[in-house]
Every structure is written in structure tokens, then in C-alpha cells.
């Protein structure tokens, strides 16, 4: 019989190796799934992970997409990872993303068609505020009334989605859009648009914000007392209490940061790649970012890499849809599988697997 023995402290080697092992296992299991769908598994895996970057014909289009897709994922995941480390589970980033986009786009559209330099910076602030305020609702309910933040933050996503459709059909609808739902296209309104900064790279302000968030989170966690408090609260809540960590403040801080970053991601998306508020503007970045945060082991640098990998599966998935006729849902299942394998192999970093002797196993 196999027996598990708890390690005194998590193994450094396995902490680094488990995400890679999980990706490999997911490729194998995903290959089996693609084979079951009647596709050549090797071709499918190559189309998803290799072709977006190196295919002679498509790579020039899909390579810039890598940053476009990774930007919001990294930005949201960085925020979530702080909370997850402290044992605060904000799983409603999707709703905060929507609200950030609505607040930001709302501010931009209010100024239409003025051409003033401060419109875009104001939209950025409004976007962060939108996400922050939406995350503050579960945070304050948690601190004031001890309500479960997991359930509230998730239920707020459904509220935000209804709010989004109400806004795109009503208040924010393009008055020149011929009655179609959806707002004016912000990318055609220079003062409020978030354009590609360097042609052919996909780099926009959101990607820069994501990189800045990675650096800031790294410094916060490694060098700042707040980062220490966050880690302490997650690993030893009682010790944190004795060390004078204020749990209420930590909930407000972690939820606030993750909400504001998700709101920023929404704003940069609506003013850049998406261009407009529409009913189905959100595509699930808020949920995929949960996988990104775990795949990156809640570590800023790890999240950066995980975000790029996850973005690759998005682009590769689209390519596989186009070239092999692989259903879009298959990619979603594939991403879900990745989280399963990740959680499963995490066992190796916290436990040693030993062969148990009969005598011991009473």
C-alpha cells in the first residue's frame, strides 16, 4: 500500500515542477479527449500550442493576440492571487470585470465627442473604481455581517451580467446604431480608445498595466510587510492574529485590489480589443484567471508565465476551431482539466509518497 507522509515544509523542487507536470498530463488527457472527438490528437495539440507562434501562415496574425489575451488574464489573476494567499476567495472577478468596463466606458461615452487629453486617464480611474466598488460589496458584507464572500462574489456575477445587458440595450446604446444593442465603438473615438501601441505586437495599455501589476505584486509579497501579512494570514491565521494583523483590513484590501485590477482589465478590454459594450462582451476571463492564478502557484512571476500559456490555449483553440473543426467548448473543458491535474499533482509538493510496511499500517 502507498502511504502519504507530510513534508515538514513544501518541496521546492516539486513546487516548480508540478505546474509543468500538470500541463503535460493535461496534454495527454486532452489528446485522448480530442481523439474521442475524432481528431488526430497530435495534430490538435500542435495546433493549440505550436502553430499560434510558429505557423508560417497564421503566426503573424496570432502572435500579437498572445499579449492581447494574456493581458487581462494576468491582470485579474495577480489580484486574485493576493486574496487566495490570504484565504480570501474572490471568485466573482468576472462581475468586477464587467462593472469596470461599464464604469469606464460610461465615463468615456459621457464626454463623446469631446477631444480632451484627460478622458482616457479618467476612464482608467473609473474602470478601477467600478471593479473596486463591485468587490467591496462582498467584502463589506463579509467584514460587517460575516457573510460568505465566495457565494456573494459569485452571485454578483449574475447581477453584473443582467446589468450589462440592461446597459447595452438602454443607457449606453449607440444612438446612431440603428436600434441594435451595443454602445458606440470606443476604438473609433480617439480620446477614449486604447490602441495597439506598437504595431504588430498586440501591446496596449492593459498589457503594460499587467506587467506593472506583476512587478508591484512581486515587490509587495517579497519586500513589504503587507505581503508578509497576507502570506501569514493564509498559512497561520491564529499566528497572524497574534502578530497584530487586522483581518478586516486584509479582507477589504485583498478584495479591493482584486476588484480594482479586474475592473481595469475590463476597461482596457472594452476600450481596446473589444471596442464596445455589448450584451456578450465578457468572455469568461474572470473565471479563467482563477486557473491562471493557481497554475502560476499564486506567485507573480508564475502568473505571468501561466497567463501567457493560458492565452496560448485561447488562440490555439480558435485556430484549432478554424483548421480542425474542434468545438470551442473542447478548449474550455481542456482548461478545466488543467486545473484538475494541477490540484492533483500538488500532492507531491506537500507530501512524500512512501511504500507502507504491513506492520506500520495498523
Amino acid at each position, binding site marked *: 500500500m502507498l502511504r502519504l507522509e507530510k513534508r515538514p515544509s513544501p518541496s521546492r523542487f516539486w513546487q516548480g515542477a508540478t505546474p509543468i507536470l500538470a500541463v503535460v498530463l493535461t496534454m495527454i488527457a486532452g489528446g485522448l479527449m480530442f481523439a474521442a472527438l475524432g481528431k488526430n490528437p497530435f495534430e490538435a495539440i500542435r495546433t493549440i500550442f505550436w502553430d499560434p507562434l510558429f505557423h508560417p501562415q497564421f503566426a503573424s496574425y496570432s502572435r500579437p493576440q498572445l499579449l492581447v489575451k494574456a493581458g487581462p488574464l494576468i491582470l485579474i489573476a495577480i489580484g486574485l492571487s493576493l486574496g487566495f494567499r490570504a484565504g480570501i476567495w474572490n471568485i466573482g472577478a468576472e462581475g468586477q470585470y464587467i462593472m469596470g468596463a461599464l464604469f469606464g466606458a460610461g465615463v468615456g461615452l459621457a464626454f463623446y465627442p469631446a477631444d480632451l487629453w484627460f478622458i482616457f486617464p479618467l476612464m482608467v480611474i473609473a474602470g478601477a473604481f467600478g471593479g473596486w466598488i463591485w468587490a467591496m460589496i462582498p467584502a463589506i458584507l463579509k467584514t460587517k455581517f460575516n457573510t460568505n464572500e465566495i457565494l456573494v462574489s459569485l452571485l454578483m456575477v449574475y447581477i453584473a451580467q443582467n*446589468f450589462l445587458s440592461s446597459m447595452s440595450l438602454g443607457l449606453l446604446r449607440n444612438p446612431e446604431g440603428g436600434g441594435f444593442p451595443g454602445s458606440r465603438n470606443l476604438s473609433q473615438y480617439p480620446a477614449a480608445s486604447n490602441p495597439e501601441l506598437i504595431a504588430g505586437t498586440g501591446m496596449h495599455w492593459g498589457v503594460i498595466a499587467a506587467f506593472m501589476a506583476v512587478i508591484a505584486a512581486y515587490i509587495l509579497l517579497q519586500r513589504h510587510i503587507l505581503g508578509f501579512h497576507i502570506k501569514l494570514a493564509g498559512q497561520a491565521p491564529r499566528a497572524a492574529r497574534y502578530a497584530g494583523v487586522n483581518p478586516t483590513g486584509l479582507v477589504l484590501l485583498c478584495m479591493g485590489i482584486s476588484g480594482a485590477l479586474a475592473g481595469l482589465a475590463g476597461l482596457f478590454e472594452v476600450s481596446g480589443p473589444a471596442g464596445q459594450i455589448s450584451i456578450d462582451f465578457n468572455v469568461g476571463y474572470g473565471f479563467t484567471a482563477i486557473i491562471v492564478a493557481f497554475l502560476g502557484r499564486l506567485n507573480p512571476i508564475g502568473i505571468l508565465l501561466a497567463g501567457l500559456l493560458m492565452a496560448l490555449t485561447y488562440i490555439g483553440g480558435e485556430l484549432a476551431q478554424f483548421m480542425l473543426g474542434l468545438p470551442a467548448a473542447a478548449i474550455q473543458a481542456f482548461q478545466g482539466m488543467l486545473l484538475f491535474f494541477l490540484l492533483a499533482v500538488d500532492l507531491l509538493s506537500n507530501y512524500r509518497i512512501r511504500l507502507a510496511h504491513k506492520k506500520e499500517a495498523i
Partner: protein
Amino acid sequence: MFGGIDPALLIASLMVASVPIILAAIGELVVERAGVLNLGVEGMMIMGAVCGFIVSVQSGSAVLGFVGGALGGAAMALIFGLLTQFMLANQVASGLALTLFGLGLSSLMGQSFVGIRPPSTGAVPLGPLADIPFFGRVLFSHDWVVYASIASVAATWWVLKATRTGLILRAVGESHDAAHALGYKVRRIRMLAILFGGAMAGLGGAYISMVRVPQWTDGITSGAGWIALAIVVFAAWRPWRALIGAYLFGGISVLQLNLQAAGARIPVEYLSMSPYVITILVLVIMSSGKGKAALSAPANLGQNFHASR
């Protein structure tokens, strides 16, 4: 504003609307009583919905469809059980993974079944009872799953309160170390509870796709699993209160649908968000003040068990 709404019809459809949530909430209630927090109810429900739908369409039998739905939910629960009980993974993260995976896989499986009608689940012939004015329509004109869902509440209440099985289950949830010291197989008991929870969530999902809607669309459960999780907290882990909570929620969702149909002056989007808003409000009321829900939570809820000896 309420002029066009028939109260008998409203209560009758309320009972139907609550069924998926009752089933899923009762399943999750048992799981949480055993000390396991499975946040993947939404994923198990939607897999139950798609499996039930496919089986019922292929076999032409609604009963087999429900069996398929329960098996689909239980299969998802098995993954969760393996992860949390044997791989000792974090329960919150594993539950989320279950939901994300379930949403993707269900839409993959259901692709070729969009736009098909499933076989109908017949009403139970209660003869003269159904002819009683008002009460006949409200209580005695439903399909068998409605009655089965209420029976499941009663059965769960009885098992938890009055049987040895229930006592052991609660012991495992309150203190897994003590239960282990007494010689109970904590892991096995929890696995069984998780599988039961998955099967119930699967049944609830199958009811949505086979009776409530009835057809297959992506994301058909639209948060019912999360509502069920909230109902368990609302119920303070007691079966009958879960029934009340589910009826409260069902009542609100039916009422808002009726208001939409009656052409109320409130925009449709605000009506459709109302069930979620009210669920949050109820959660807040339950978790604050005198009747603090947290006090009645199983003591070992969400903690993994690893026998060092």
C-alpha cells in the same frame, strides 16, 4: 400589477421551479454535514443536465434520463472526491475546477442535442385528488420528481436525526479526528456522502433540462448550483429549512417571470437579477445577528483529513 397572475398557477409553478434547487441543496447539505465543502454543485448539476438529456433522448425514457443525470453528477463528484479525499487538494479550488470543467464538458457533449425535445415526464395520476378546487391544482397535479424531491427532504431529515448512519455522518463532519479514533473510515464515509451529493445535484440538473426548460442550451443551469449552496447556509444545515429556502427562491423566480410576462413596468433585466439579489440579502440576514449561521456549521467543514496514524 398582480392582476394577470393566477395564485393557484403561481404556487403550482413555484413547486416545480424549486425542485432542482431542493435536490441539489439536499445533496450538498449531506456532503457538508460530513465535513466536506463541495463548491462544484453548478458543475455537477450541468453535467447531470446534459447526461440526463442525452440519455432520455436516446432511450426515449424519462426515468432512464434521470438515472443518467444522477450518474453524470456522481461521476463529477467522484473526480472531486478523488482530488480532495485521496490527493488532499484544497476543497474550494477543487470545487471551482469542477464547475469550470463541467461547464466546458457539458457544452461539448450537448452540441448535437440543441433544439431537440426530450420525452415528457408524466404527471402522477392522483385521480380525484387532482379535481379538488385550488389544492388539486396546487398540490396534486405534478410529475413524480416533485413528490420525490419532497420525500428526499423527509428522508434526509430522518436519516440525519434518527439513524446510526446519520449519527456517524455527523460525527465525521463535526470532528474527523475523533471519528477516526473511534474506528470509523472517515475517507470512505466522506466519499459516499460526496457521491450522494453529486447524484442529487445531477438529478436536479436533469430536472432543469428535461422538465423545467425543456431542451438543451449551454449554461442551462444559470447559477442554480450556487443558489443551492446559498440555500444550505440559509438552512443552517437543516433539511426542512432547505425546503423552505428553495420554495422562497422558487417563488421569487416564478414571480419575476410572471411579472415579465404580465408586462410590468420594471425592465426585464432588473427582474431577472432579483432572485440573485434576494439570495444575497437572505444570506446576509442569516449570517448576522442572533441566528448566526456560522455557529451551526459542521465544525470540520472544508478541512481535509489526513490520518497520520
